[in-house]
């Protein structure tokens, strides 16, 4: 059967449960409000990308909702037993997981891109920058592009951990632990070992900055996050293919 059929089916599944819409509404509210507030308290900035960076602050906590959405997309199947129906309909387990991931990523990218535009708008209206905050500024585009990429990767990490752990609480705890809780904890402890460990964690990012975490360049941050995503998703896919349901 064509892969697009499986993607269509997964989209129907995602849009027909309330948790999706709760996560979506909260994501929009947290990021939107954070963006407006961040831009409002930043009266002026030396460069356009700094101004946009402040307006993206809401993503720091907002990405938790992407994680919840991604985890629930998988674990709700195991919790309810729906997975039996899903795998009977689509016995190719890798295909099913891939389709689910595509849908979560597409929805996350769409929402995040729209929210990024809103944050840029807030920065351009509320923060004074010499020369303004043009959307076409390479620094601005990099901030916004990185934000979309990081949120999408957070979604995939959530799907991977959900598949691996098959438990909503376990997967959300693990994802939020490594992305949001451990990075600042290690930052405070301030030993060399802690710093090395911290750099290996997939901390949430706000634009090109790590959120409450040891400072790393955006390139390094993307590589680390990408490695976690590949590892958790691949391991999840392998275990899904091997284990009984």
């Amino acid at each position, binding site marked *: *059967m*064509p892969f697009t*059929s*499986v993607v*269509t*089916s*997964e989209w*129907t*599944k995602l849009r*027909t*449960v*309330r*948790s999706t819409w709760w996560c979506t509404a909260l994501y929009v509210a947290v990021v939107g409000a954070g963006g407006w507030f961040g831009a409002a308290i930043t009266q002026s900035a030396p460069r356009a990308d700094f101004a946009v960076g402040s307006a993206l602050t809401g993503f720091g906590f907002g990405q938790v909702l992407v994680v919840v959405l991604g985890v629930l997309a998988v674990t*709700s*199947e195991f919790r*309810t*037993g*729906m*997975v*039996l*129906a*899903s*795998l*009977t*309909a*689509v*016995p*190719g387990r890798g295909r099913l997981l891939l389709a689910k991931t595509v849908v979560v990523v597409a929805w996350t990218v769409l929402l995040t891109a729209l929210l990024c535009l809103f944050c840029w708008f807030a920065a351009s209206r509320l923060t004074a920058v010499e020369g303004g905050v043009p959307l076409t500024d390479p620094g601005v585009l990099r901030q916004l592009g990185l934000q979309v990429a990081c949120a999408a990767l957070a979604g995939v990490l959530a799907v991977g951990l959900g598949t691996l752990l098959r438990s909503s609480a376990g997967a959300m705890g693990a994802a939020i632990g490594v992305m949001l809780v451990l990075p600042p904890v290690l930052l405070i402890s301030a030993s060399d070992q802690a710093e090395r460990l911290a750099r290996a964690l997939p901390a949430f990012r706000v634009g090109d900055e790590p959120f409450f975490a040891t400072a790393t360049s955006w390139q390094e941050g993307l590589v680390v996050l990408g490695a976690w995503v590949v590892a958790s998703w691949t391991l999840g896919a392998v275990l899904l293919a*091997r284990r*009984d*349901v």
Partner: protein
Amino acid sequence: MLTPVIELRGLTKRYRSRVAVDALTVTVEPGRVTGFLGPNGSGKTTTLRCILGLTRPTEGTATVLGRPYRELPRPMRHVGALIDPRARHPGRTAHAHLLALAQSNALPRDRVDEVIDLVGLEPVAHERVRGFSLGMGQRLGIAAALLGDPDVLLLDEPVNGLDPEGIRWVRELLRALADEGRTVLVSSHLMSEMEDTADHLVVLGRGRLLADVPMADLLGAHSAVRVRSPQAPVLASALQRAGGHVELEIDGALRVEGLDCDQVGDVAFLAGVRVHELGRVTASLEAAYLELTGDDVEYRAAAL
């Protein structure tokens, strides 16, 4: 010769310390309802899950239409399964649940409304499944199994939780599907349900195959002729000479095994014995089943 549709060859599933299915070799044929029977814990559900590729067998193979289930393209078009009444998200509506399943196999969207009508769920099609009764849930599961208009149906305990009207509906549905030449494998732990439905029986006990026989044979093997005569002792010895195995019943009638009604009547006539009652007594499937599975019940209540 019918084409074998579901083939199990040496199917074995072991969990750490327990053998759930033990070297099961069975062929399920089309055009009839095959009852898949066994006490709780006898391995019926595990077998069905192995057929559907949900559980990986430790040894042996299970094929549907000649190949492993996982290799079927658009499996819902070939196989419809009701595996677990909980196999759905309680927050989704019946319609959304069926739509997602239909889309995954590129089935026409109209088919969703068709099966909803077929199982009689129109009034609640757009309500969330959370509030469904057990019976409504079973109907939804059967609707999902029928979505792809499949040639093979695997139904695990489909009448669980249904009211008498629902049970009759499922029976007639299974009958009709088998009469159309489809393969219907339906599991149950209740014999009485199967007696009017199944043509063929596969009986499991502790994961092992106990019987794979036509329903009539199983019942026939446990049936006898009952004959009542005022001259019972004379008739009994005549019947024994004719090769019958005769037992005296509580009310004075004779129970004869090994001869059919015609033979018993002829023997009585030749012996000049008057007969007041002559008939075939068919063992209930329940009795035949209990006899068969008696030693193979995994969970048994202690005698009071």
